């Protein structure tokens, strides 16, 4: 890692990852422009950080005695940015081993297959085989500060990610994690924020292999889990004369999820998964949204939140020059970046994710495009700060600059949505980080959504820009 040696912060950042104990627990940034997200922008204010939390903020706040004081003149302080649907923190397998189907997310899947009992693709005859049902996998157990992608994420101002394990029909339990920490455990803000579900068969062969099969399987799985819980409690109450219920790993861990994450790329799929969530009696959060511009009324009525892919659909870079794009496709390319504006106007909470993004910075660039199309900067900023915190029930800890919240801050030398703006320093759990002068490339390829038109290292397959979400 390269650090800016001229920076006054050298002392702290050099020790940042290795020994947090040496970091002063009391820091004040004064005379900075503060964008608290909740509340109005303060042109000249001070933020006080104590023991990893925000202690005070405001124009009248003053650095306490003994505080390490940073001159914030010319700097803007934002809450640390949040990726609402991520894999950051879960180390990806090297060389992004392509999966059997050639689809993305090979890294996580490689880890998962290692976690599984050695079988590459177990054959599934029916729901009882629990195909691709990795409910026992928890992002909180998988995150490591050594994930090579964290540096790039931090360099773009991200301090937190809602990270979900991937692979199979149910990837596992997601966790809210800070993007730095002494250990994996120290990174975890909230170990259980929701169950990741997909409609993409993977990690098994056989049933279910169709939309109707998968819908039916999820319903059966929840029924089985309810029965399993009943049988277990009956047995616990009185074991005598009752045969013990068989232990079932998938059902054992199909509990303790505050919400389910379901893919809803378009209105038709949204209606399906909305009904599914109702039947499962689970609170849904919809991810992988591509056609958000057509989904606002249903989402509003359902009082549901969505997470948008941050790569707006575009023509493939390496595509047939004589290929004519359909009006439907052109409309989609035209309208998708307007989704945030349309959702905001309808009052539907939306957050942005690294899904589909090549580099973390692309999330901000995608929002910038939406701002150019009429989205307010405030709504844009919320979608990567307070809204994801609210969606995952963490608004008391994350998402804005308010006393008592976790001291996750992104200090920039200008407006977040100005492409020339650089992240000068970050605070994660009150610990200061200074990005390397040259923002590093996202190593080992981007998130599961794939790079824009590029090619995954080690993969033989080209990526399409209009890729279907996983």
């Amino acid at each position: 890692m390269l650090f800016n040696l001229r920076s006054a912060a050298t002392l702290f950042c050099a020790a940042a990852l290795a020994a947090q104990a040496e970091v002063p627990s009391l820091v004040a940034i004064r005379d900075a422009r503060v964008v608290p997200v909740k509340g109005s922008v303060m042109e000249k204010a001070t933020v006080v950080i104590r023991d990893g939390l925000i202690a005070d903020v405001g124009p009248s706040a003053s650095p306490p005695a003994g505080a390490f004081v940073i001159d914030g003149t010319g700097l803007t302080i934002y809450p640390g940015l949040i990726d609402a649907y991520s894999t950051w923190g879960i180390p990806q397998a090297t060389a992004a081993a392509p999966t059997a189907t050639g689809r993305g997310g090979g890294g996580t899947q490689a880890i998962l297959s290692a976690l599984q009992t050695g079988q590459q693709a177990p054959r599934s005859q029916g729901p009882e085989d629990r195909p691709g049902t990795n409910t026992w996998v928890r992002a909180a157990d998988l995150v490591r500060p050594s994930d090579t992608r964290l540096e790039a994420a931090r360099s773009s101002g991200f301090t937190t990610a809602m990270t979900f394990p991937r692979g199979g029909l149910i990837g596992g339990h997601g966790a809210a994690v800070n993007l730095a920490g002494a250990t994996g455990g120290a990174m975890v803000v909230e170990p259980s924020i929701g169950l990741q579900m997909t409609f993409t068969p993977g990690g098994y062969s056989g049933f279910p292999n169709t939309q109707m099969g998968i819908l039916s399987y999820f319903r059966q799985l929840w029924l089985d889990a309810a029965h399993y819980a009943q049988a277990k409690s009956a047995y616990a109450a009185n074991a005598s004369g009752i045969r013990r219920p068989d232990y079932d790993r998938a059902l054992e861990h199909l509990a303790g999820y505050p919400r389910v994450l379901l893919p809803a790329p378009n209105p038709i799929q949204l209606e399906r998964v909305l009904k599914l969530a109702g039947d499962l009696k689970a609170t849904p959060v919809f991810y992988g949204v591509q056609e958000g511009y057509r989904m606002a009324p249903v989402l509003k009525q359902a009082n549901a939140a969505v997470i948008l892919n941050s790569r707006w659909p575009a023509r493939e870079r390496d595509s047939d020059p004589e290929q004519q794009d359909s009006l439907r496709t052109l409309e989609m390319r035209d309208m998708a970046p307007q989704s945030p504006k349309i959702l905001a106007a309808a009052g539907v909470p939306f957050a942005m994710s690294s899904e589909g993004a090549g580099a973390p910075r692309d999330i901000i660039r995608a929002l910038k495009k939406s701002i150019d199309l009429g989205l307010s900067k405030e709504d844009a900023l919320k979608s990567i700060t307070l809204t994801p915190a609210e969606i995952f029930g963490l608004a008391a800890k994350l998402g804005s600059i308010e006393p008592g919240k976790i001291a996750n801050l992104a200090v920039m030398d200008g407006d977040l949505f100005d492409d020339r703006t650089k992240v000068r320093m970050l605070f994660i759990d009150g610990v200061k980080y200074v990005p390397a002068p040259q923002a590093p490339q996202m190593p080992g390829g981007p998130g599961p959504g794939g790079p824009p038109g590029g090619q995954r290292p080690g993969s033989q397959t080209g990526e399409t820009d209009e890729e279907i979400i996983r």
Partner: protein
Amino acid sequence: MTRPILLTMAAAGILAAGQDDSFLIRGATIHPVSGPAVENASLLVLDGKIAEIGLKIQNKAAQGKNKIRIVEAKGLHVYPGFIDSGSPVGLQEVSSVRETIDTGELGMFNPQLKAISAVNPESEHIPVIRGNGTTMVQILPGVAGGQGQTGIIGGQASIIRLSGYTWEEMLAVPYTALQAVWPVPSQGGRGGFDPSMLVPGARRQSSFSQANRAKEENIQKLTEFIEQARRYQAAKKAGPVPADRKFEAMLPVLEGVKPLLVEAARERAIREAVEWSEKQKIRIILTGVTRPGKMIEELGKKRIPVILGSPYSIRMEEDDPYDDPFTLPARLHQAGVEFAFASFGLQFARNLPFQAGQAVAFGLPYDAALKSITMTPARIWGLADSHGSIEPGKVADLILTDGDPLEPRSSVKMMFIQGREVDLESRHTRLYRKYMDRP
């Protein structure tokens, strides 16, 4: 298998009875295609050939033959038998049973294969196809490639008449054209954006540059193959060479005697194929043309014939007009492109006349439609002197109908192939009767 054999014996009975291939049709409306229809006319067939047409037959020989068969055809219409310019009939029977499929040999270049060599005269499809008026079919060997290769030259197409005990009897032209497929960039997957799909499959297998490179390589291989054949041709002229069936089969193509029947659906492939053929000085006929774009005018100017497949399909691109496949024949006609219809099918080959009828409903002049399954294919396949119209001297391949044969409601009442009456029984009529009779 006893039933088909019994049927064939029954059909054979008519022919084997030594029935003459001379007869006189009286009182019919004759549609010669080459000219206007003649009402209440007579048609004399002698020894399998059309001898005379007119209101009153002058032929002394016919009058002398006191036992000539008279076909009273009041209210019926006489048309030349229809020619299907492409079908696997006789080489395929049940598409889902591998053992009954004889098309699509593996390999890139198979000019030496002859479709006629694999024809099954007992095919159940043949009587069915005859039922709507088709008397001749160009049979295609198919192009398959396989083993990672792209098939380019499939083999020799042949023309058969739909009547005969053996393939020799059915054979009309052993080698009409060499069937080929123009290489196209294939990226695999469905591509584009299909948001309703959440399962894999839409993803492209390769980028366009990769696919295009593979296409260029395949065209290069085709060019090299032609050059090799030219060297063989030159060497053969100079002196004896070891015989090579592949290159032997190429000689008529190099000499311009036989055309290359090239499948090219879209504008770019059509343009590439046309430009390549001009450079190579090889005569081509295009087939499978679906979305020719600006090449329509070029095909008219360059006088390159086109074989059209079934119009009963949906448009190729989402935003094309809904009737794009239906109006293509009319658009080709307007641009002066000569075209013939082919069924390119097996069980739907019987719909050939209705393909032409559908084109009329979408703007093609009726005469052009009728010609596209009679005179035009006869001309394209070098049979203009003997087939395609009702004119003295031509082969008596005739149908008698109770109405316009391009209309599905009309039926074919009688059929003659080489002047011999052909049974119009088929699996369809047998099943029809069987279930009509069910108590």
